[in-house]
């Protein structure tokens, strides 16, 4: 077990190294000369050259990558071109809304999708199953921002049940915080629900054909216990896996959802950075999201033994 954990952690190192190389190359090949920008319009070519040398921009690619990586490892993601603030500070300012949104969406999606998939598999072929799967296809087909505007128009503008846009920090109270995040979470959760429900149904269909399920039913175990205790436990590994892989959808979707609902999170930060071509910020956000994604999936790999005691390493 311990050996596996170590081995698994080591395999993430080349992956993160590749991500770092990609993100670094982004700035390296980005149009525009940082030295010329810093020097200003009045600078002579010699001035630009001097600034370039003082920034170390004249050195070879790999050496610069090494230095950049070293700084990143120490927690220095560079400085935003537009705001002149450290990128880490910008990310720290914007992290709460995004983390709130993603955790809420995750909880909501799992609560909805898993029972949906289980019941669809149990009633396979029935109208409940067909309805759930039709919903899943729709969830994959209707883009995030379309869902967002539809929900906002209906529940915020027409019915006036929930706030239209904006974000309230959790420090100002749980309810105001939650109220602002309900619509964004549903919006962001739809694709995720579709994905999890589909995998849950497919896995459950296989599990329900197993002998021990028939035995449990023959013993007279209540149907809900057969489904949610005996079967779901055995279907847990693929479901947990897809929850982890689906985080990529959440990250991509958050960028859009935050734009629709005017939430000042990391997604908004990314969009603003794109529009201003603020490369250090783009780098920082991509690097951070990828790290989170890799770590979440690492964690999920490691929890397989908890979910399914039969798995031993």
């Amino acid at each position, binding site marked *: 077990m311990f050996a596996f954990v170590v081995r698994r952690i080591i395999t993430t190192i080349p992956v993160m190294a*590749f991500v770092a190389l990609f993100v670094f190359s982004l700035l390296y*090949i980005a149009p525009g000369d940082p030295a010329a920008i810093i020097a200003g319009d009045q600078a002579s070519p010699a001035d630009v050259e001097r600034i370039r040398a003082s920034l170390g921009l004249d050195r070879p690619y790999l050496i610069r990558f090494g230095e950049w990586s070293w700084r990143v490892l120490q927690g220095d993601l560079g400085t935003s071109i537009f705001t002149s603030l450290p990128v880490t500070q910008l990310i720290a300012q914007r992290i709460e809304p995004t983390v709130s949104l993603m955790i809420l969406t995750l909880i909501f999606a799992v609560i909805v999708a898993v029972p949906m998939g289980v019941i669809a598999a149990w009633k396979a072929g029935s109208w409940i199953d067909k309805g759930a799967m039709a919903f899943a296809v729709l969830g*994959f087909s209707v883009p995030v921002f379309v869902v967002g505007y539809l929900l906002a128009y209906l529940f915020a503008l027409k019915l006036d049940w929930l706030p239209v846009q904006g974000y309230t920090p959790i420090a100002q109270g749980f309810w105001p915080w939650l109220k602002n995040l309900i619509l964004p979470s549903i919006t962001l959760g739809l694709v995720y629900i579709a994905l999890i429900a589909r995998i849950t149904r497919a896995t459950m269909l296989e599990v329900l054909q197993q002998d021990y399920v028939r035995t449990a039913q023959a013993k007279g175990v209540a149907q809900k216990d057969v489904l949610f205790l005996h079967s779901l436990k055995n279907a847990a590994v693929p479901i947990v896996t897809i929850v982890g892989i689906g985080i990529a959808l959440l990250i991509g*979707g958050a960028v*859009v959802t935050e734009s629709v609902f005017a939430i000042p999170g990391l997604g908004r930060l990314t969009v603003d950075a794109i529009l201003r071509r603020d490369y250090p910020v783009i780098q920082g956000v991509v690097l951070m999201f990828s790290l989170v994604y890799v770590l979440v999936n690492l964690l999920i790999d490691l929890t397989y033994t908890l979910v399914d005691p039969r798995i031993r390493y």
Partner: protein
Amino acid sequence: MTTPSSISAPAEAVASAETVKPAGPGRGARFLRYLRRHPSVAFGGGLLVLMALIGILAPLLWTVDPTAISPARRTRMPSELYWFGTDMLGRDIYSRVIYGARVSLLVGFSVAILSSIIGLTIGLFAGFVRWADGIIMRIIDGMMSIPPILLAIALMALTRGSVGNVIVAITIAEIPRVARLVRGVVLSLREQPYVEAAVANGARVPRIIFRHILPNTFAPMSVQATYICASAMIVEAILSFIGAGVPPATPSWGNIMAEGRALWQVRPHIILFPAMFLSLTVLAVNLLGDGLRDSLDPRLAKSI
């Protein structure tokens, strides 16, 4: 959207389709029977053909110049004259939406075809050249750990917004998934007795690839390609929506929605119409993909 990487020999599905050739009904009748048995292929395919026709025939569908600005008739509601209303610059939204089909379909199909070809090549290479497999798979793992939309956004930040650049950015983001799928298929096919027999008979590697491996990647690849097409259309719309996609003047569904963003509380129809077209088109492609998956390999249908 997801296809398991461990697809075990979808050979039978293809083989049996080839062996039913002799006698029986003609090609047209067989095609009709296929469509009847797989309604989602018929419905999705039909809807997609309709969208393609709309895009191709856009100038004939009572449209006006989709880029013509007219300050005098800004933000009109839908009416007999302006079927879908007009936007903030007075452009006719109906014409923009109809022309927008071109961008979406062009991006969807181009990305599906390009990423399939490149992914297939990389996947075959990784599946056959064992020493390169480790390196290629590490790179693919690395690329796949960057969420696809974020990867496309980052690439778009490097270049000017244009349809070509959008296609390249989304293609790069999609390649790893195809390559991984193909590699999985290749690795499982290499263990098949008929491939071993071919090797034992002294067949050279190119012959094995083109005669025995390539035809069997067709089924999972075509399913994967439709899902990539659907996802590419959504990513294009997202890129344009956040201002990192095709140039604002180009009529694309994402652009029209981006323009409607400021006014959505009072003029929701500016977003509604392109949203409907986009959702319907993506739905059509997804249904086509589901139908193809079920009909090409019934075993796959159960596993996803």
